[in-house]
């Protein structure tokens, strides 16, 4: 169990001393790196460890830390292991290097992250309009973009939702379920606010 994953963990630690490597479970290895080490690491993973396939690039908004997290997911066809490489970049004027030279498909993901999170990928000249059309203003997937406010200002709201009840409380009362404190305001936001 976890033999190939642990071997991989040792291998990565030997080369990248500052990397936080963790075996998540079978077939999953997570690597956390400084942002300037990501291009060399991905090059190393692709050429040396034979992680030939880039499955996905995604982005997470850590507004509390004032940082954006980029997540690169690689796959090795022989080993059948997935590497999840994560890095944090600054949130304001987010910059990163393009991985187009490593994998052509990175272009699509970079365009999407550029449009939805406003990250500028240096070296990618294709960062134009992608999914959204005529979008002006803040990228919509950032957490400080208020989607309810935007929807109210832009689109016509049909009346009838004003009396929307928070049914979570009633349901939990019926079933005797205990809701943890942090989950209490998850449920429907008050429309009036």
């Amino acid at each position, binding site marked *: 169990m976890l033999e190939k994953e642990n071997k991989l963990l040792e291998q990565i630690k030997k080369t990248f001393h500052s990397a936080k490597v963790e075996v998540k479970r079978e077939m999953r290895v997570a690597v956390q790196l400084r942002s300037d080490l990501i291009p060399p690491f991905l090059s190393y993973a692709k050429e040396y460890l034979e992680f030939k396939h880039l499955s996905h690039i995604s982005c997470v908004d850590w507004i509390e830390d004032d940082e954006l997290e980029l997540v690169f997911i690689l796959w090795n066809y022989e080993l059948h292991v997935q590497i999840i490489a994560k890095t944090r970049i600054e949130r304001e004027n987010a910059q990163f290097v393009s991985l187009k030279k490593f994998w052509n498909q990175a272009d699509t993901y970079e365009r999407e992250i550029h449009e939805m999170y406003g990250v500028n990928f240096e070296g990618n000249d294709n960062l134009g309009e992608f*999914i*959204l*059309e*005529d979008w*002006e203003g803040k990228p*919509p997937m950032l957490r400080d*973009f208020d*989607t*309810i406010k*935007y*929807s109210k200002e*832009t*689109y*016509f*709201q*049909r009346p*009838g*939702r004003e009396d929307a009840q928070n049914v979570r409380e009633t349901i939990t009362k019926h079933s005797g379920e205990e809701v943890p404190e942090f989950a209490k305001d998850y449920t429907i936001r008050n429309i009036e606010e």
Partner: protein
Amino acid sequence: MITPNIDEKDKRRIRDIVQDFARKHSLWVLAYGTGCGAIEIPPTMTSRYDAERFGIRGAATPRQADVLLITGYLSTKTLKRVIRTYEQMQDPKYVIGFGSCTINGGMYWDSYNTINALDRYLPVDVYINGCMPRPEAVIQGFIKLQNLIAEGKGNGADKYKENLEWYRENQKKIIHNWEMPDYNW
């Protein structure tokens, strides 16, 4: 000689009754789907529910179609295409709003990218509610539309022409880059 006391408005109505009776049994639906609701159309059209027994059939292009189905959520990007499609269709034409999303936004009511009330942008003749409406509900909606046509009330397209400025104002409010041809009907 006795002249029946019928005014100009009612004379047209008699001709229209015949015309509308014929129209009601020949509804060509544009083969176009937005959102997730389009998945309910294949079972409606094929052997299980067989919408063709009511005279409802698919049409390949907007110029051959009578009915435009808006099946589910409509993003602003799609709305631009839908408006263009609708304006290309020839009279008589009808719009059916399909699913909760076209009525009040449904589960996407707070989305940054989907409209919430379809009838502000296009004249909707019939709404079918539900998420998703099953083929029975879809057929019921079509029958409602047929009844409206038979009564001469399926006149969304006329309303659109009369109030074009109002519709255009609403449409241009969310479509900033308006690059559409102006059709004259």
